[in-house]
């Protein structure tokens, strides 16, 4: 069965051009970029080219780019570093809707004596900026806020938040894993100190990430050892993946306009058609500024895992904020923080598109999903009670 892949916030297809770019660096050009000989040197120059390309997408300077193994490592490194360079400050600020890569780290640090504040969001998933202003103080070492939410696509005003953090001398980090490649980001005139990205969210392979650290921002490495990445991240470079990421960033810049026009139009068509066809549904994050590729829709009286598995029968790949799919027993912390009513928190489905999404694929979801929801509602004791007299 051919997959209809609408789960691009989970991971993306490696672009064929990206794969071609990295292919020689396994069996042929396998040298260590740190080596003195020509054979390593030619890899070194491709790694440098990749660094330039990544910097180009971010509006950063190449020496501000540190390659890591994943977004999670970048997030962990940024927060740990801030606490080490500002040892007298014992307060960390993040939000209630962060990715676990940040949230779990912060909660572990709370166990170790740090004060952690989690800023709330409103019903549309927008950050409570007043709460943030009131929470930052002279003890705050770092404010870490995501650029865009992975579940809802809601975008946070990170520049504004960074200004609030800087006014009290705190460092500001943004987990921009979901935003990079989908919306324009420019670090040139930014107050953001550190920024995380992950390759596999923008058509590069898994296992490669970046931490941007602004020139002049003090940094302490998480991994120590060799002198790689100017001693800011020890460990032999994952050269092939770095080269792939460079290509992926170059392509992301080329496709940025399409992402915000073509993909966005597809996303809008999908959510509009589903909302028109299915009663008792709501868009999570409706009214907030959102990523162009993401829509999360909550369907009342049905459960997300059942929807996903029935979609899967048609080859349609999506994801859910429901409890049952994650192995936890409560709906996602993001939906709960937004106060999504319990009647539909369990039935939220996220569709995340990419530049590879076709109109035919969108048509198929619009065709197949409404009968699936109707079928599960027929089976549900609540669906029957609440939907009497409706189809």
């Amino acid at each position, binding site marked *: 069965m051919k997959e209809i892949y609408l789960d691009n916030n989970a991971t993306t297809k490696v672009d064929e051009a990206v794969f071609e770019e990295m292919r020689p660096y396994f069996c042929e050009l396998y040298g260590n970029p740190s080596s003195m000989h020509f054979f390593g040197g030619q890899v070194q120059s491709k790694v440098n080219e990749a660094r330039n390309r990544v910097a180009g997408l971010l509006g950063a300077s190449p020496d501000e780019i540190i390659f890591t193994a994943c977004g999670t490592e970048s997030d962990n490194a940024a927060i740990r570093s801030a606490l080490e360079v500002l040892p007298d400050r014992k307060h960390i600020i993040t939000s209630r809707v962060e990715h676990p890569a940040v949230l779990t780290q912060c909660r572990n640090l709370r166990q170790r004596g740090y004060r952690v504040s989690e800023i709330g969001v409103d019903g549309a998933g927008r950050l409570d900026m007043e709460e943030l202003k009131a929470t930052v103080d002279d003890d705050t070492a770092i404010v870490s806020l995501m650029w865009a939410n992975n579940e809802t696509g809601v975008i946070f005003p990170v520049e504004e938040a960074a200004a609030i953090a800087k006014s009290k001398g705190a460092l500001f980090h943004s987990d921009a894993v979901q935003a990079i490649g989908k919306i324009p980001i420019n670090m040139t005139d930014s107050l953001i100190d550190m920024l995380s990205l992950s390759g596999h969210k923008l058509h590069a392979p898994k296992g490669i990430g970046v931490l941007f650290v602004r020139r002049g921002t003090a940094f302490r490495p998480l991994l120590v050892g060799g002198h790689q990445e100017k001693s800011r991240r020890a460990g032999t470079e994952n050269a092939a993946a770095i080269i792939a990421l460079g290509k992926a960033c170059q392509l992301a810049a080329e496709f940025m306009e399409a992402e915000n026009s073509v993909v966005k139009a597809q996303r809008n068509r999908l959510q509009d058609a589903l909302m028109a066809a299915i009663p008792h549904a709501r868009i999570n994050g409706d009214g907030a500024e959102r990523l162009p590729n993401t829509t999360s829709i909550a369907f009342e009286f049905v459960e997300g895992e059942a929807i996903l598995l029935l979609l899967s029968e048609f080859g349609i790949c999506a994801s859910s904020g429901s409890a049952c*799919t994650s192995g936890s*027993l409560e709906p996602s912390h993001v939906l709960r923080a937004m106060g999504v009513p319990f009647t539909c928190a369990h039935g939220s489905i996220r569709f995340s598109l990419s530049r590879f999404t076709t109109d035919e694929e969108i048509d198929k979801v619009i065709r197949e999903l409404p009968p699936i929801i109707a079928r599960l509602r027929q*089976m549900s004791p609540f669906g029957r009670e609440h939907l009497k007299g409706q189809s």
Partner: protein
Amino acid sequence: MWDYTPIVKDHFLNPRNVGDIPDADAVGEVGSLACGDALKLYLKLDDNKDKIVDAKFQTFGCASAIASSSALTEMVKGKTLDEALAVSNQDIADFLGGLPEEKMHCSVMGQEALEVAIFKYRGMDIPQHDSEHDHGHAYPDYEGELVCKCFGITDAFLKKVIETNSLTTAEQVTNFTKAGGACGSCIPKIKELIAQVLGESAAKPRTRPEKLSNMKKMQLIQEVLERDIRPLLWADGGDLELIDIDGSRVQVAFRKACAGCASSGNTARMVEMKLRDLVAEDIVVEEVTQ
């Protein structure tokens, strides 16, 4: 993705007996929208009001909740009420070829709906408890102290599930009942309940079951090895590993201090005696070196 068996998938994709029975004799309802799963079970009895002639269900929940409900209705049709009451949550899981452990609470929900339906039909007292959240996971026929406030689960209900499924860790209890799966503040209390149940069951004389399916027998052998034998060996710095079970032949390998111990033959006989006492008379224990 969950590793569902083909039977679970079949009962999810083609659920049997969905719907309601307007003139049902017995109806059992458990769960709630807030909890993420709920089941309403309808039973129709024969003229003598003894045998279940029809069963239907409505379920809100994940694939395994739907499959467990479907399986339950298939299992109870044709059974008398007393026979139906003997259906355990493990029987539902077995019917489906097994459930992922994190999904065992779906089978528990099925068994509970059945019990509630029959108790109510028989006019037995069903005390209600109010949970503090909207989250009232109603297993209403078990009164007692509310342990898990998030899912509204009492100590009496938890002890029943711990005992019937021989649960030994708080994580297992969460998988089987959801209790402790949200805020987690009741996990220490759950651990106390496990200790209580283990204490009670240790005090109770244990006897060999009368007859066992092969699957049950293998399970019981493993259980006795884990619970009764290995702790004894650990006390002497030894250990054993279960290598294979073939009918009544149980192959074990001795580890640590037991490996190569001159009296390991005696240890093997001790293991055999214990298994004969608690599992089946014809068990033969063989020592293998692996």
